[in-house]
């Protein structure tokens, strides 16, 4: 039983750390209205940068996270550049960056696909050493502190003039251009912030799992979308922007809990991606199906 509880606790703390990535996905998918596939690459990028700096460079783990964040901003800028300047569709621009990041990540890690952080200091090991708390408890605490700080930051940012212009860019490009906003800049900024958060999350997950791996981000976008969908289903009734952001992180926690439970029930870990894709596909299909069903029904009623 305690093994089960432990794995649940681990799932919650992982969910919160990945929740920071979900915040990034929320910005592009929900606010800017584009599905940005850079995410898979930038999540791995954050981890690879972090692992390399800490293990090979002997960097301070906090400084390494800052560089991870910066690397993510840069990755977002590349997608933004392809999308806004050369008008490549956002999905394709994201795929191009994602694919190139795979090679770049491998180079960053000096040709190794995995770098373990076993003996290196991380922010998690610091706090475990000073407080004596368990690893997953510390992950949870750090995750919550960072997530709350980022939600507060995003809440503030999207309330500013610039943030409002960014939200309007996702809502109605014609309108916001007519109001004097350069939508190339706002889209670029959104993609940068989004991928910055994703890479930061990648760096944090790398430090908590004690390894960086070029395959760490595979399927991250689907996890992000699934978490957003789950958060929406659970807390969609809450209207304020702050609660929307919170529900993205909560969605991530629930996603990892579901994952831990089905794994406990004996599901193959490799099937988890299929399950995530089904969750997202269902979430996208259900509203359409319901609409169609309503249309059919209203026709029959009208005919009587």
């Amino acid at each position, binding site marked *: 039983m305690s093994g089960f509880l432990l794995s649940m606790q681990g799932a919650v703390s992982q969910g919160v750390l990945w929740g920071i990535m979900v915040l990034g996905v929320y910005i592009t998918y929900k606010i800017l209205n584009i599905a940005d596939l850079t995410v898979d690459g930038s999540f791995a990028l954050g981890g690879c940068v972090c692992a390399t700096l800490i293990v090979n460079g002997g960097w301070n783990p906090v400084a390494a996270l800052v560089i991870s964040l910066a690397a993510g901003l840069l990755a977002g800028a590349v997608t933004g550049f392809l999308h806004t300047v050369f008008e490549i569709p956002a999905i394709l621009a994201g795929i191009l960056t994602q694919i190139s990041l795979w090679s770049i990540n491998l180079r960053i890690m000096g040709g190794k696909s995995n770098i373990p952080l076993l003996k290196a200091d991380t922010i998690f090991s610091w706090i475990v050493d000073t407080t004596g708390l368990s690893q997953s408890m510390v992950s949870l605490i750090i995750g919550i502190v960072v997530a709350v700080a980022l939600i507060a930051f995003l809440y503030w940012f999207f*309330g*500013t*003039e610039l943030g*409002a212009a960014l939200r309007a860019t996702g809502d*109605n490009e*014609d309108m*916001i251009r007519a*109001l004097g*906003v350069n939508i190339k800049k706002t889209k670029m900024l959104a993609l940068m912030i989004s991928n910055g958060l994703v890479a930061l999350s990648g760096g944090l997950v790398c430090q908590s799992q004690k390894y960086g791996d070029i395959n760490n981000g595979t399927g991250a976008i689907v996890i992000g979308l699934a978490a957003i969908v789950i958060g929406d289903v659970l807390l969609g009734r809450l209207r304020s922007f702050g609660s929307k952001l919170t529900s993205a992180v909560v969605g991530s926690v629930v996603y990892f809990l579901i994952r831990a439970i089905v794994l406990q029930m004996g599901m193959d870990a490799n099937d988890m991606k299929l399950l995530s894709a089904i969750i997202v596909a269902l979430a996208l299909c259900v509203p359409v199906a319901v609409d169609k069903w309503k249309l059919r029904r209203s026709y029959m009623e009208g005919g009587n």
Partner: protein
Amino acid sequence: MLKLTGVQKTFNKGTINEKKALNGIDLQLKEGDFVTIIGGNGAGKSTMLNMIAGVYPIDAGKIILDGEDVSRSPEHKRAKFLGRVFQDPMKGTAATMEIQENLALAYRRGQKRGLRWGITKAERQRYYEELKMLGLGLEDRMTSKVGLLSGGQRQALTLLMASLQKPKLLLLDEHTAALDPKTAAKVLELTEEIISEHRLTAMMVTHNMKDAIRLGNRLIMMHEGRIIYNVGGEEKQKLKVEDLLEKFGQASGGEFANDRMMLA
């Protein structure tokens, strides 16, 4: 105020879909002019307004706005001069944002948007007063999402947004065409009020010839990318719908019977 010289625009140049939409437009507006624009479908009315606003680049000619040559500047840079209301009520407002947020976005048209808070308390008070003047009860729904409003309400809101930061030129492209007759009349009334109250320079495309004659101090008729009739002052006051139909008939070789203009 506004000066167009030899403005030309061809869409899809060099393809089978090539379409000469503007064929050398010359036009000059003085401060405070209110011009109504009529013409058949595809005459180039929307294109002319879009060229002034910079939605697409022009092929040739010059556009001078308030003494500044804007011929080649992008849409977002010209926005500081222009208030715009589109035909489609969905186009002028952000549906997922609050009424007051839409107003705050419009209030900052042409200004640098930084990290100050997106809407201040003093602004809210002002928006309340302005919304009250529309007489649609929107002042009590300032935190409602614009998506909940009707087409007419959205169009009235867009009109208010266009005038919140006084524009050098107001561009109205059939902005009442998608509304039911009663709502259209109300929005048109608001348009007149706003234009006269702020003494705006304005261009209004319409398919209603009575409105085109009644409103404004100048009327232009377009056909196949040209201005074929440009009339102001007393001559315009004396115009009748029949005169316009005749003018139009001459230009199009009598084939106007099935045109939407007839319906007006």
